[in-house]
């Protein structure tokens, strides 16, 4: 077992100014937001430029990291004291974070470029780029932060960006509602993350990753400073946070609604980067999970459950973006499964995360291109036969499709199989379920391809599909190239595992990649069955323009496995009632009590003043009475 290496304080070089990665997009966002309409004309170029600049910094930093000996590849950069005594604002540039940085800035830049075209008709394009830049900055802070508090700042920052971008078309009530939902559901996860941070702090007195190595954790358990239960609790709370951000069960419901955002947003945030932050968190917190097998087990269970749930949802969606969203959920489930499997799993999980970033962004952007061509129609039942009119989009999309279903030698084949095999070694049940998931993936992705690009044209009357401009297709091409080769590059020779080892540790014995294995073959077989079934249902057969009623299972899947219904009955309705009751209690109860008291005093006053009858004789009586009482009282006291 190889442990992560110590963090070395860094100065000089590009790594020394790696904060520019965050600062530049942030600056871009600030300029675009504050500049207002004045920046409308060139705003999108600035956005792209800032993103590209960050990418350049990331690449150079990556090269610098590669130039360092393995034991010094974790570089800490102090920026300033954030909350004195608790957390500093500092960056940690290590193989894990730089991988993310490359993905974020790389894929991010491509999506920026794509958006120049995609959003060209939107009057608020400038604002869109501002938000995108803001997102890039926040996401980079999330992955580059060297402690949990700074991470949390980025964590919420991406939540904000996601909120703003999902609700970008605010005038659509559905978009505004979806944005709010995403934020609130994420907050449930954040709740867990916050408490995890508190527990880490009260247990270890630090929130910096550097102070929380596996050795520290096991030592703490050994000395009794932290109980096993505490560590497990930390792990589960971190997982709750991760579930929120990564749309894992039970906090998955927001992701499908999030597709209300413009498609580049779905590609960047809700496919390639932000939603994978949960996986990052679990991997980054490996020290706790490795010391808490229960928590690890829960991670894998959540992963498997989500990968199946996402896949099932994906099968029933006619909305191309929602289909892809279900697929995203499912794929992140794979990553989560990997992340729950220790150092071997980490490497596969992150590798899958990166390749997924490419092929899923590729497909989302492809979907965007299709929508662009089809007057923003998202219903796949209104597509069909598009292959012939938009070849670049179709080909790149199909490459992404092949990658995701794990077509041999493409990216997904290597990374997903890695996870499945590791899972299989770890726990047969989980492994087989993951295989089943892969099979379903084969089905629903093929369904999507057939419904969109092949078969009969079921277009709306006014649809005149055309290929998108090159500013949109070039990113597609680049992404599809990544979708083809990246997996092989990362997995073969355990290249990525070795690279990551200084950051997350690695097993003593590195696994060899088997091109032929039981799990692999079974996966392929099931995928093939799935694809064939899809062909049978949606390729060969007529696709009705209106969705048929479908079986119970179909409805179940269409309704997102009743996740929303569950939320509604369990939380929303009772919550609304609770709020109403609370308002009532506040007005009538607490306020009423005080007002009632006041009214009582007033009433007493009103009644008492009637005693003042105006008759002098009754006043005399009151005097006499008073005198009698006073005399009596004095006599009583005196004779006591």
């Amino acid at each position, binding site marked *: 077992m190889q442990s992560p290496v110590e963090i070395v304080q860094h100065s000089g070089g590009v790594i020394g100014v790696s904060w520019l990665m965050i600062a530049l997009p942030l600056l871009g966002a600030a300029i675009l*937001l504050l500049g207002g309409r004045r920046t409308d004309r060139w705003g999108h170029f600035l956005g792209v430029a800032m993103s590209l600049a960050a990418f350049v910094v990331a690449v150079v930093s990556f090269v610098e990291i590669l130039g360092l000996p393995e034991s010094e590849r974790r570089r800490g950069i102090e920026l*300033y*004291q*954030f*909350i*004195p*005594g*608790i957390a500093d*604002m500092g960056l940690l540039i290590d193989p894990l974070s730089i991988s993310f940085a490359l993905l974020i800035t790389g894929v991010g830049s491509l999506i920026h470029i794509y958006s120049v075209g995609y959003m060209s008709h939107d009057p608020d394009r400038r604002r869109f780029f501002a938000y995108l830049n803001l997102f890039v900055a926040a996401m980079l802070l999330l992955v580059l932060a060297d402690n949990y*508090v700074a991470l*949390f*700042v980025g*964590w*919420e*920052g991406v939540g*904000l960006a996601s*909120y703003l971008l999902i*609700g970008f078309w*605010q*005038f*659509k*009530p559905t*978009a*505004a*509602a979806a*944005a*709010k939902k995403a*934020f*609130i559901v994420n*907050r*449930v996860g*954040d*709740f867990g993350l*916050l*408490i995890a*941070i*508190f*527990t880490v*702090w*009260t*247990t*270890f*007195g*630090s929130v910096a990753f550097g102070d929380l190595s596996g050795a*520290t954790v096991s030592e*703490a358990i050994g*000395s009794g*400073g*932290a109980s096993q239960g*505490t560590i497990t609790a930390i792990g589960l709370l971190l997982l709750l946070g991760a579930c929120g951000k990564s749309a894992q069960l039970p906090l998955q419901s927001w992701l499908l609604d999030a597709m209300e955002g413009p498609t580049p947003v779905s590609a960047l945030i809700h496919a390639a980067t932000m939603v994978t932050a949960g996986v990052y968190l679990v991997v980054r917190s490996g020290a706790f999970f490795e010391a808490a097998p229960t928590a690890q087990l829960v991670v894998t269970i959540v992963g498997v459950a989500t990968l199946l749930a996402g896949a099932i949802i994906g099968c029933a969606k006619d909305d191309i973006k929602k289909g892809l969203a279900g697929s995203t959920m499912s794929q992140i489930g794979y990553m989560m499964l990997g992340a729950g499997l220790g150092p071997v799993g980490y490497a596969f999980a992150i590798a899958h995360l990166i390749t997924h970033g490419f092929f899923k962004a590729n497909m989302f952007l492809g979907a965007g291109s299709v929508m662009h061509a089809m007057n923003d129609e998202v219903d796949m039942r209104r597509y069909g036969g598009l292959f012939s009119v938009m070849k670049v989009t179709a080909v790149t999309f199909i490459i992404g499709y092949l990658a995701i279903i794990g077509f041999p030698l493409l990216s997904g084949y290597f990374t997903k199989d890695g996870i499945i095999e590791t899972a299989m070694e770890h726990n047969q049940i989980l492994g087989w379920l993951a295989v089943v998931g892969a099979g379903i993936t084969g089905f629903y992705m093929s369904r999507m391809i057939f419904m969109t690009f092949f078969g009969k044209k079921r277009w709306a009357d006014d649809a005149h599909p055309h290929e998108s401009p090159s500013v949109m297709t070039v990113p597609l091409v680049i992404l599809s190239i990544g979708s083809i080769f990246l997996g092989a590059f990362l997995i073969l020779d355990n290249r990525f595992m070795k690279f990551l080892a200084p950051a997350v540790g690695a097993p003593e014995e590195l696994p060899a990649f088997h091109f032929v294995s039981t799990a692999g073959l079974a996966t392929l077989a099931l995928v093939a069955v799935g694809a064939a079934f899809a062909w049978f249902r949606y390729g060969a057969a007529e696709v009705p323009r209106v969705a048929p009623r479908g079986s119970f299972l179909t409805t179940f899947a269409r309704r997102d496995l009743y996740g929303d219904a569950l939320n509604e009955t369990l939380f929303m309705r009772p*919550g609304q009632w*609770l*709020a*109403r009751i*609370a*308002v009532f209690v*506040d007005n009538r109860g*607490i*306020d009423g009590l*005080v007002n009632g008291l006041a009214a009582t005093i007033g009433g007493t006053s009103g009644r008492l003043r009637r005693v003042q009858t105006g008759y002098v004789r009754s006043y005399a009586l009151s005097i006499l009475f008073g005198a009698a009482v006073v005399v009596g009282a004095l006599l009583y006291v005196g004779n006591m």
Partner: protein
Amino acid sequence: MPWLSILMAVPVLGAVGVSLTKSDKLAKQLALAVSLVVLALTGVMAAQFNPSSATRFQFAEVYDWIPRFGVHYGVGVDGIALVLIALSAVLVPIVILASWHDADGTGAAAPPKRSVKTYFALLLVLEAMMIGVFAATDVFLFYVFFEAMLIPMYFMIGSYGGAQRSYAAVKFLLYSLFGGLLMLVAVIALYVIADKGTFMFPELVGVIQDPNTQKWLFLGFFIAFAVKAPLWPFHTWLPDAAAQAPAGAAVLLVGVLDKVGTYGMLRFCLELFPDAAKFFTPLVIVLSVVGIVYGAIVAIGQTDIKRLIAYTSISHFGFIALGVFAMTAHGGAGATLYMVNHGFSTGALFLIAGFLIYRRGSSQIADYGGVQKVAPLLAGTFLIAGLSGLSLPGLSSFVSEFMVLLGTYERYAVPAIIATSGVILAAIYILWMYQRTMTGPTAESVKGFTDLNIRERWVVAPLIAVIIALGFFPKPVLDVINPAVDQTLSNVHVDQFTPAVADKKGAGQ
């Protein structure tokens, strides 16, 4: 230089000047100028403050005021008081600028025209009293300001507020007076029992030893502060007062005046009666936590923008009280910082809501919709202020809320966890309000809205700037607060927090 006296004298003189001016316009300009002078003076004073100094109260001035009662004109600031004075000094010019037309009788609701000079004179008088109440180092002087500052606020609500203004003003005054009078009993008893012949705070610290006496006196002070802050269940005056007050007055009410309650808890309840404070801690923590959750839930159910904001504040005051009574360094510092941050973020929310209401003449959420489309700047700044209200990291409230929760968790894990659920509820009430007012199709009545004008931008810009700056770089403020909080806690005699791991190591050695 008698800095603090000057800080109080300038606005008072300014108020006199304002009430003597000939034209309304001149009155406004003069008021603004005076408040800016106060701000500048505060800035100069703050620059000379030395957080690490051994003297606790700096810029101290002590003169006999009423020797017969042992009352002094005693002022001085430590870090806690300084930041709160700075908060007041920053907010007042902003509020003046924001309230430019509040008394003019313009605005969509067509309120009657009222005396402009009086309004701005009251504002300045209030500023002097706000500075005084935080600067007072004499318990009696504190009490005097504590009660006297009700009066200008009472008139600001009652004369310049909304339709229900007199009900709200009377409710505000009576609640506060009731609390204040209970405190008066405790103040008297403190003097009599301490038998020191003085009301100077430093000389009264640690004097009351008898636990039972402490408990009663503590309650006297605490109830007054709990009404003021307001803590659940003493809060029902706030929604009425804040909803009826003109936006500017609401800002000062919720942003500064109410802080006197939490400030009082930190300074007086804890230090004068440490044992009682510890005894009552479970009670206060329960009240705070209930307040956090309850305030948030009731806020979710509101249909009036200003009432909603007021209820969010009740929730936030729960956080502050929680931090104070956690009695940890982080909790205390977080609570103090929260007082400052809450002033800015809720201030911004109220002011922007005020701009909104000025345009439409209604504070009902249902009367809005799709404002973002016609007034994006207004909507955007409202969102930022709201996000600060829900403690989004990177905006100022987060740091303080985080510190409060962390500080509480160090000692009381379960209450801290329940309180943390407030972050979810906060997201619901803020974003739902934003959704209902700013997004969706633009409502007919909103179509004619103009975006923020230059004056309004000058109101909002500094607030947003401060919110973001303190969100990323709270250190300057925390550096001032931390020593003062440590000093306070050392007078309370609580053990410093040590992490479980270090604790074990310490025990092992």
